[in-house]
C-alpha cells in the first residue's frame, strides 16, 4: 500500500516495521512527530524524557539490556546529550541503538543552524542521511542493522525538509524482531575507567576502519552516471534540489555521510570532468574530498548558510538566477508569529517590559515576547540558560533588583533545576519566573513531568514546582496568576527588593491547551467606540484581535473625547479569548463583554 508520509512519520513507521519497541526522546522541532507517531503503534514503549541527555542515557540502558532502542532529538538536543554520546561510542551496545538528529538549516524553529554531521565525525559514530520519506523509512532499518553488526550507536540525520516534507512511501508489514533482553556483566566493555576506555578507544578506531570498508560497497552510496561533463557528490535533501535543477548530470549520491567511501569518491572523480559537492551548511564532505587531493568545487559557489532549493543549486552552478517576472522590491509589513489571543505569557511580559529590569529569557513560545510592543526579554541562548545567566548577571552587576530570569515549565524541567540550585548555593539575588502554562506548548502541547501524564497517556506523578523549590533551599516562592497584572507586578517588585533568590511561578494554562482540554471559555470582549478615548494603552499588549482605527479611515462619525484623539481601538470579538488584560489597562472603561445575540 502506498501512502504520502512526512519523513518523521516514515521514520516512525520504519522503526515499527523493523520491530523496534523502545524509544525515548525530548520534543523539539523538527523531530517531534517521530515520537508522537511511533508512540501510537501497537506493542511499543515510548517516553518523553526531561531532556535529551536523559533520553540518550535511557536508550543506552535499554540497549545494554538487549533492546533495540531509538532515541530522538533535534540538532541542539545532541549538544545536551553529547556527554553520554561520546562515550557510548566506546562501549558499543548489546541490543541496538539509533540516534535521530533532526537538523534545522535556515533555523525555521531553532536558535542556531549547527551541522550535526560534525558530531558523527567527532564522536566516531556512523551517520546515515535519507533524502525523502521512502529512504527515511528504509534507512532507519539499515541503521539498526548496522548498529547490531558493528556494535555501535548509529546516527540518522534528517533536516527540516526531510522531516516535514511529504512523499510517497510503500508500507510493509511489521516483522517481529527477536531481541535477547537481559543483562550481561562485562566491565571491560561497559565500565569506562581510563584503563578500560584506552582499550575501547582502539576498538573504536578498528570499527571505523570496518565501517569505511562497508561504506565502499553500501548500496545506498550509489553512482548515477549520465553526462560526465559534470559530476555532483551530494547527500540528503540537496540531492533532490540538484536532480531537479540538473537531471542530466552524473551523481554520487551518499546515503551514508560518515564515514565516507573514499575509493568510491576517487572512482567517481575519475569518471567526470568537473566535480562539485552540493551540501547545505558546513563543507563537511568537501573538506574530506579536498584532503584526498581531489579538485572539487564547493563552498566557493554554494552558500554556507540556510537551506537550499533547486534555484540555489542552479544559481551556484551557473551563476544565473531564475525569477518570475521583473518585480520591483515592495516594502511589505512583516508578519512574525505572535503570542496567541488569551496567551498567559502576554500579561507577564507586559509587566516585565514596564519594569526597569533585564530579563534573561529562554526557549519557548514566550521567546516571542522580545518583539514590539511587549519587549519583555533581553536574551535567549539555549534551553535553561535564563537561570544561570540571571545569576551571573546579578553577581556581575552587584546591585540588587536588576535581573529576572524567565523560563517555561518544560524548559525548566529540561535544564533549569541545576542552575536554580546554583543560585541557592551561591547566594544569588536574582528572581526566576517559571511561565507555567501546564504543557510543552511550543512543540505542540506534549506531556512533561509536570503535567501528570506520560507520552502514552498513562497517569503519573506530577512535579510540584513549589515543593521542589523549597527542597532546593529557596525561601521565597510564590504562585501568581498572570491574567491579574496588578498582583503579578506587585509580586515581581516585592521579590526584586528581597535579599536571596526568589522563585515566582506564573501559572495559567496555555490558551490552546484550554481549548484542547475543553476548559470553560471566557466571554469575548469589544470596544465601546463612544467610550474609547484613543489612548492606545490596550495596543501595548500586541494582542492579535486588537487593532487601531484612525478616524479618517472610518465610515461612522465618532465624537472625540480629547482634542488630540486620532482614532479608536477595535477588538475583533471573533478572535478575542476574553482574557481581560486589555480591560485591566483601559482607564476609560471602554472595553466590555460582548452581549450574546447582539
Amino acid at each position, binding site marked *: 500500500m502506498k501512502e504520502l508520509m512526512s519523513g518523521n512519520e516514515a521514520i516512525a513507521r520504519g522503526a515499527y516495521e523493523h520491530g523496534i519497541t523502545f524509544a525515548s526522546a525530548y520534543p523539539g522541532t523538527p523531530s517531534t512527530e517521530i515520537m508522537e507517531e511511533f508512540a501510537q503503534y501497537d506493542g511499543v514503549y515510548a517516553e518523553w524524557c526531561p531532556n535529551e541527555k536523559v533520553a540518550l542515557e535511557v536508550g543506552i540502558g535499554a540497549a545494554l539490556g538487549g533492546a533495540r532502542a531509538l532515541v530522538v532529538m533535534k540538532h541542539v538536543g545532541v549538544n545536551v546529550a553529547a556527554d553520554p554520546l561520546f562515550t557510548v561510542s566506546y562501549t558499543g551496545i548489546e541490543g541496538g541503538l539509533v540516534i535521530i538528529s533532526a537538523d534545522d538549516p535556515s533555523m525555521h524553529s531553532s536558535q542556531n543552524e549547527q551541522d550535526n554531521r560534525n558530531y558523527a565525525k567527532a564522536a566516531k559514530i556512523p551517520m546515515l542521511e535519507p533524502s525523502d520519506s521512502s529512504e527515511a523509512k528504509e534507512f532507519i532499518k539499515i541503521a539498526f542493522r548496522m548498529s547490531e553488526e558493528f556494535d555501535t550507536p548509529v546516527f540518522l540525520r534528517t533536516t527540516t525538509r526531510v522531516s516535514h516534507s*511529504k512523499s510517497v512511501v510503500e508500507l510493509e508489514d511489521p516483522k517481529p524482531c527477536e531481541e535477547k533482553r537481559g543483562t550481561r556483566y562485562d566491565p571491560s566493555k561497559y565500565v569506562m575507567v581510563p584503563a578500560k576506555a584506552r582499550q575501547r578507544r582502539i576498538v573504536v578506531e578498528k570499527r571505523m576502519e570496518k565501517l569505511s570498508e562497508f561504506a565502499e560497497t553500501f548500496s545506498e552510496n550509489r553512482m548515477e552516471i549520465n553526462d560526465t561533463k559534470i559530476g555532483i557528490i551530494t547527500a540528503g535533501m540537496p540531492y533532490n534540489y540538484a536532480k531537479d535543477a540538473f537531471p542530466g548530470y552524473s551523481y554520487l549520491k551518499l546515503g551514508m555521510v560518515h564515514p565516507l567511501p573514499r575509493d568510491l569518491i576517487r572512482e567517481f572523480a575519475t569518471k567526470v570532468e568537473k566535480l562539485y559537492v552540493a551540501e547545505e551548511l558546513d563543507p563537511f564532505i568537501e573538506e574530506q574530498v579536498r584532503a584526498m587531493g581531489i579538485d572539487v568545487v564547493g563552498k566557493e559557489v554554494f552558500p554556507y548558510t540556510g537551506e537550499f532549493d533547486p534555484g540555489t543549486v542552479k544559481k551556484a552552478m551557473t551563476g544565473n538566477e531564475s525569477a518570475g*517576472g521583473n518585480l520591483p522590491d515592495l516594502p511589505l509589513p512583516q508578519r512574525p508569529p505572535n503570542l496567541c489571543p488569551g496567551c498567559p505569557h502576554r500579561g507577564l511580559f507586559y509587566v516585565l517590559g514596564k519594569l526597569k529590569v533585564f530579563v534573561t529569557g529562554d526557549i519557548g513560545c514566550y521567546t516571542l515576547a522580545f518583539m514590539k510592543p511587549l519587549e519583555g526579554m533581553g536574551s535567549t541562548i539555549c534551553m535553561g540558560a535564563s537561570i544561570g545567566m540571571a545569576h551571573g548577571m546579578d553577581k556581575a552587576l552587584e546591585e540588587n533588583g536588576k535581573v529576572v530570569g524567565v523560563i517555561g515549565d518544560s524548559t525548566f524541567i529540561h535544564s533549569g533545576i541545576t542552575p536554580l540550585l546554583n543560585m541557592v548555593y551561591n547566594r544569588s539575588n536574582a528572581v526566576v519566573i517559571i511561565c507555567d502554562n501546564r504543557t510543552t506548548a511550543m512543540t505542540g502541547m506534549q506531556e512533561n513531568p509536570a503535567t501528570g501524564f506520560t507520552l502514552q497517556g498513562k497517569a503519573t506523578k506530577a512535579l510540584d514546582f513549589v515543593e521542589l523549590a523549597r527542597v532546593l533551599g529557596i525561601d521565597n516562592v510564590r504562585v501568581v496568576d498572570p491574567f491579574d497584572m496588578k498582583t503579578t507586578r506587585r509580586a515581581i517588585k516585592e521579590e526584586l527588593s528581597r535579599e536571596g533568590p526568589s522563585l515566582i511561578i506564573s501559572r495559567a494554562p496555555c490558551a490552546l491547551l484550554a481549548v484542547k482540554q475543553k476548559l470553560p471559555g471566557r466571554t469575548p470582549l469589544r470596544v465601546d467606540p463612544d467610550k474609547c478615548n484613543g489612548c492606545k494603552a490596550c495596543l501595548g499588549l500586541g494582542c492579535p484581535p486588537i487593532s487601531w482605527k484612525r478616524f479618517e479611515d472610518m465610515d461612522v462619525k465618532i465624537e472625540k473625547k480629547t482634542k488630540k484623539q486620532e482614532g479608536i481601538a477595535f477588538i475583533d470579538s471573533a478572535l478575542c479569548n476574553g482574557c481581560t488584560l486589555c480591560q485591566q489597562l483601559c482607564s476609560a472603561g471602554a472595553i466590555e463583554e460582548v452581549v450574546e445575540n447582539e
Partner: protein
Amino acid sequence: MNESVRSVLLVGVGGQGTIMASDILSAVMISAGFDAKKSEVHGMAQRGGCVSSHVRFGRKVYSPLAGKGDVDVLVSFEKLETLRYLEYLKPDGKIIINNEEIYPPSVNLGDTAYPSDTIDFIKKHFKDVKVVDATAMALRSGDKRMANTVILGVLSSYLDIEADIWEDVLKESFPAKILEGNIKAFRLGRGE
C-alpha cells in the same frame, strides 16, 4: 528544470487552513496517478505567522520545494501574503487570491499601513489573476471556515483532474458532519 513537474504554492496566515488544503491537493495528485511531494514549515504556523506550502507533482518529483520562478499556480489565502511570494511564480504563472485581509501586528498597531493597491499591482505584472470572495462563498455553503475548500474548488478548475477524484479525497479528509458543506463549497469554487 524537469519540465514535466508542476508546482503549486499555497500561502496564507497561520490558522487559515493552508496546510490542510495542500494535504488535500497532494492526495488528489497521488490518486490521479502522479508522483507528488509537498513541503511546508511547521512550528510557528499556529501563531499567526506566514505559512507557505509547496506541492509538486509529475511523473517523477525530486525536490519538494519549488525554486524562485518555478511555480505554475500561486494560491493565496490572504491578499498581502500574495505579494510576499510573487517571485516564486513563472513569468506566465497563474494566481488565485482569496479577497481577505488579515492585518499583521505592525498594521494593528498603526505603525505601518496595509498595502492598498495589491490587486492592481499584481495584475500589472501577471496576466492570469483571479480574485475570489471565498469567505462570502463559504458562508453560502454554511460556514466561513470552508473558505479554503472554496479556493481548492477554484484551483481544481486550473488543473486537469476529474472532479470525482477531488471529491473522493474530500470525503476522506473531512468528518461526516462537515463533509456536505465542504463538497458544496468545493463545487461553488469549481464553478459547478
